[in-house]
């Protein structure tokens, strides 16, 4: 009996275990090993054991700086735009419109992010917004290939990922709690801070984590809207692996990114745990 149970459990886990072992752990191990190696004369990887690649990390300081500023700023910007939208969708809109508006939030996903980012190239390029601004007297404003352009791109691209977890959390909110708060003497704006916001925190935390982690690895949007001037760690990796073919240094950059991410997630998880101490209605992630 116990034997068959163990076997059944093993069978359930085998596909996932094989998948992760082959496609996550193995490549991760390879990257870790490569990061201590050297670039061979013709590019690629030459075996060795040196910390030289790690010592060389400051050469890619700009990529880390851009990623570590634009990812958090982008996450916060997405949150500030997504929350009111999710609130509107979950609480204020009539059921008749709700479905349609929710579909509208998803519709952009039907087109590739590549194409949508190119659209922004035209919007932010010389004949787009700057031309419009010039018409009202604001000459010589350059938007494309600036951090602002990248920020606009990432917030635009990742907004639905922020909207949906918050929407789901707010959708579950029992509106009678707001009536109870009003009944007990709380004006509406205060009951938002005391009731709505705390009870929607699981959605806020999930959405923020989702967007932040994905932004840390982003490379497409900076490549298109940053024009080689605003690049992320992701762009550095593409460059090191595919163009300059310095796999060893590329691996060291990748390992550094993973470590930064692990530390961030750990700190975040601890903060959330403290915030939600003893609560069962706030998820860690």
């Amino acid at each position, binding site marked *: 009996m116990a034997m068959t149970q163990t076997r059944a459990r093993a069978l359930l886990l085998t596909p996932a275990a094989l998948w992760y072992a082959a496609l996550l752990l193995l490549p991760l191990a390879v990257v870790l090993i490569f990061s201590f190696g050297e670039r061979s004369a013709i590019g690629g990887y030459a075996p060795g054991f040196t910390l030289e690649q790690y010592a060389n990390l400051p050469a890619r300081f700009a990529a880390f700086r851009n990623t570590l500023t634009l990812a958090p700023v982008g996450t916060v910007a997405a949150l500030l735009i997504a929350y009111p939208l999710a609130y509107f969708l979950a609480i204020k809109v009539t059921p008749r419109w709700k479905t349609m508006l929710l579909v509208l939030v998803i519709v952009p996903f039907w087109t590739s992010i590549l194409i949508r980012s190119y659209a922004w190239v035209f919007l932010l390029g010389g004949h787009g917004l700057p031309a419009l601004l010039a018409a009202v007297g604001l000459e010589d404003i350059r938007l494309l290939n600036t951090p602002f352009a990248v920020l606009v791109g990432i917030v635009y691209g990742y907004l639905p990922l922020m909207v949906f977890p918050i929407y789901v959390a707010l959708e579950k909110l*029992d509106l*009678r*709690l707001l*009536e*109870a*708060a*009003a*009944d*007990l*003497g*709380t*004006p*509406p704006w*205060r009951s938002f801070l005391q*009731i709505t916001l*705390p*009870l929607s925190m699981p959605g806020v935390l999930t959405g923020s984590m989702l967007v932040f982690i994905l932004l840390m690895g982003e490379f497409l949007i900076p490549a298109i809207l940053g024009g080689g001037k605003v690049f992320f760690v992701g762009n550095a990796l593409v460059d090191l692996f595919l163009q300059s073919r310095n796999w060893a240094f590329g691996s060291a950059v990748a390992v550094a990114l993973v470590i930064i991410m692990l530390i961030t997630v750990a700190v975040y998880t601890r903060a959330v745990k403290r915030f939600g101490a*003893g*609560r*069962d*209605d*706030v998820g860690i992630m």
Partner: protein
Amino acid sequence: MTETSCAHVSAKDTVAEFAGATKRFGAILAADRIDLSIRRGEFLSFLGPSGCGKTTALRMLAGFDGPSEGAILIDGQDVSAVPAHMRPVNMVFQHYALFPHMTVAQNVGYGLRQRRPRLSKSEIAQKTDKALATVRLAEFGTRRIWELSGGQQQRVALARAIINEPQILLLDEPMAALDAKLRGEMQRELLELQRSLNITFVLVTHDQEEALSMSDRICIMGKGRIIQVGSPQELYDRPRSRYVADFVGKANIVAGQIDGRQSGMAQAILGNGTTVILRDLPGDSRQTAEIAVRPEALSIVAQDLPLTEGIAAIPARVTHRTFLGDRIEYLLMADGVGQLQVNAPRQAGGALGEHKVGSLVHVLWPEGTGLVLADDT
């Protein structure tokens, strides 16, 4: 008997008033010209089936729904436009609506923390402890809401409301989610609480037993209107219409031809020709009317026994017999009259003999029992 005004009650004794309060939701008329004075310190129940307007009335009092027409007055002030958070009333919600992200004590102290200027922390803590002790949850302050049973949650909701010392405590079907045994206990506790706090309680319920056992006055509602207001006993003994007679307790309702009226009494001939004497409806002059009589006011004797002169007797056949411990409920079919229910207490049953299904009996209708009903409006 419907109270359209309470001129005899002075303003000092009136804590709140509905003055022609009407509420429309689109095309739906949820409350239709409600006029009612709520007396200070009384336990008033709004009773009626779902959709009768009782919850709308409560929500207008709480401030969640403003009246479309008419006004709501609290302490003589028109509060129709005053939002819920500025009204001196508190509510115990049907499903309690406790804040899941707060402890029991934080829930109970919530109203006090909303006061501006702020109360001191020690004052809030002290009042919270007192309120928790009042509902017998003194040891539960640090618990989380989901750790409590339904009955405990209900007491937290009660404490969270009464801590604010409201002018009126509103209770929206507070017992609906509790099982029968707990409900009885909570009803007693609620009554004791009301007496000790001396706060006006306004209860909304669809449970007539609950309304009868707890209320000083009951306001029976239907289709958004007040049908009848009165003490439980008045409503039970003198229902004005079929709607009230049916809703409060059980009633036999039969058709009658009225062929004589004198000093508050009416003589009516039933469909089978039996003549009964019953209480008249003041001011009524109809020839035909519906007549109500309570099942416990009637009694049964076997048909082969001699009848006493002067007591109306309706020949009938027993169709159902339900033993209920303290009484036996008989359903009978009487030709020309229709179905009748008679509740016979046990000791009487022993004395007069019990009746089997199918046996032929006389249903006895003592003089002065039952009353003439008004047409349902």
